[in-house]
């Protein structure tokens, strides 16, 4: 499906969710409770078959976090984005999508390391780049480090 068709399809299929679009992809906004059922539906429905999670990341929209899932289909070669807003800045938690895509293992390690978002049901959540003792989460907008020198 092309972008407009896909947007229309998402509006029909998920009437309670907000559907938006970026320059490239349609975007579906969902709550963190419905993450796994919606993702499973998108992956398995014969119309969409979004079976390829090619990018998973987070954006710090101070004060809330935005989880961004980029999905693609190896059958139809269409793409979309799913966004989940996490409002709890002190203790952001979301379910892992590892049960649907094994790729989430490494992606979520990175997000945990750099944003401090914790994932439940993740097989091995660890700080993959930084040390376990590292203070703070560098990709947060309010991250402070005395060692950063600005010219």
């Amino acid at each position, binding site marked *: 499906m092309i972008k407009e068709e896909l947007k229309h399809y998402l509006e029909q299929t998920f009437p309670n969710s907000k559907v938006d679009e*970026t320059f490239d*992809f349609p975007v579906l906004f969902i709550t963190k409770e419905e993450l796994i059922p919606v993702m499973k539906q998108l992956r398995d429905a014969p119309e969409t078959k979004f079976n390829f999670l090619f990018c998973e990341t987070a954006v710090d929209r101070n004060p809330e976090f935005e989880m961004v899932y980029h999905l693609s289909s190896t059958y139809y070669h269409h793409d979309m984005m799913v966004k989940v807003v996490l409002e709890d800045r002190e203790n952001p938690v979301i379910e892992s999508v590892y049960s649907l895509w094994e790729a989430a293992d490494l992606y979520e390690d990175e997000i945990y390391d750099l944003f401090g978002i914790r994932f439940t049901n993740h097989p091995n959540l660890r700080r993959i780049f930084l040390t376990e003792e590292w203070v703070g989460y560098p990709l947060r907008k309010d991250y402070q480090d005395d060692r950063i020198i600005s010219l």
Partner: protein
Amino acid sequence: MENPIVTPSELKTEEFVVNIGPQHPATHGVLRVEATLDGEIIKDVLPHLGYIHRGIEKMTESLGYKQSIFLTSRMDYLSAHINNHVCALAIEKAAQIEVPARAKAIRIIMDELQRLTSHELWWGSCAMDIGAVTPFFLAFRDRERILELFEQNTGNRLTMSYIIPGGVMNDVRPDFVPKLKALIKSIKEYRKEYDQLITGNFIFQHRTQGIGILSKEQAISLGCTGPTARASGLSCDIRKLYPYDGYEKLDFKEVIDYGCDNWARYVVRMEEMNQSIHIIEQLLDNLPTGDYRTKLKGVLKLPAGEYYQRVESARGELGVYIVSDGGAKPYRMKFRTPCYSNLGAVKPISVGMKIADLMANMATIDLVIPDMDR
């Protein structure tokens, strides 16, 4: 066997952990792999990253869009042109900048030459990981000639930062086309040596065939792209699926193999080198004339919004996800690097194999550590 001193069921083995790296030649950089072994059999593989983490995504947030290009060269240093290309394309798409035809052709030539250098280096190091030393010297000899051409035309050998938003940094030198023609001719001669030395080698074939099986379903689930996934029968060539800068006008094949093993990944990369040569040959004789770049303002601002652009790097799908708030600096810039996703495949294809096969598996997946760590 009638009166054995100990029966096989009484024999007990103990699992033990071997640290491979971070300073190990077979990890091609500073990757540490924690392998749990039972005798020689691999039970678990856990990669540890971060030895070369520079926080490139954080750094881009305090730099302008044009400046970010220079950081991308440092991610996958073996395909620096392609890294610059993805960043330039994303910025051009967002700011709606037209690129001259000459710049597009030069970009594709440089991309494909870069893919050749990358695959040549991979060929040498892959053979060395499996135990052959000579290919490494041959690969470096041939790669050096392409790097010389890069140096003459772009000023740098490894981190070129040549492809910038609006076109390329400077025009190619007047003797670029004749030199490249001579180079292509000699590369074709060298390619025969590669096949004589390694492809037909009985030992090499036995070390790779049927080893490191990555099924298509696993490749999809793990988010693998590039030659790693194409060797498992997954069609994922961005140049074909989402063409950019005129790839749709060129004649080339997407190389797919259904072998799923190390040998298939080897065959796919070797054939991709031929396809790259084929692409360059089509562009050489009719290189468009005209401008090599569009003049841009000093400070570039992108309209607020989100942009995603992908290209086919030497290792797979390289994507950049830009979140812009309308200012002169990116609000967030995320690089979806192919090696980071492909790294996930090391464990499933290695468990149950011998420790020596782990080296072959990591070699054919073609990991570049700065590309994962960023």
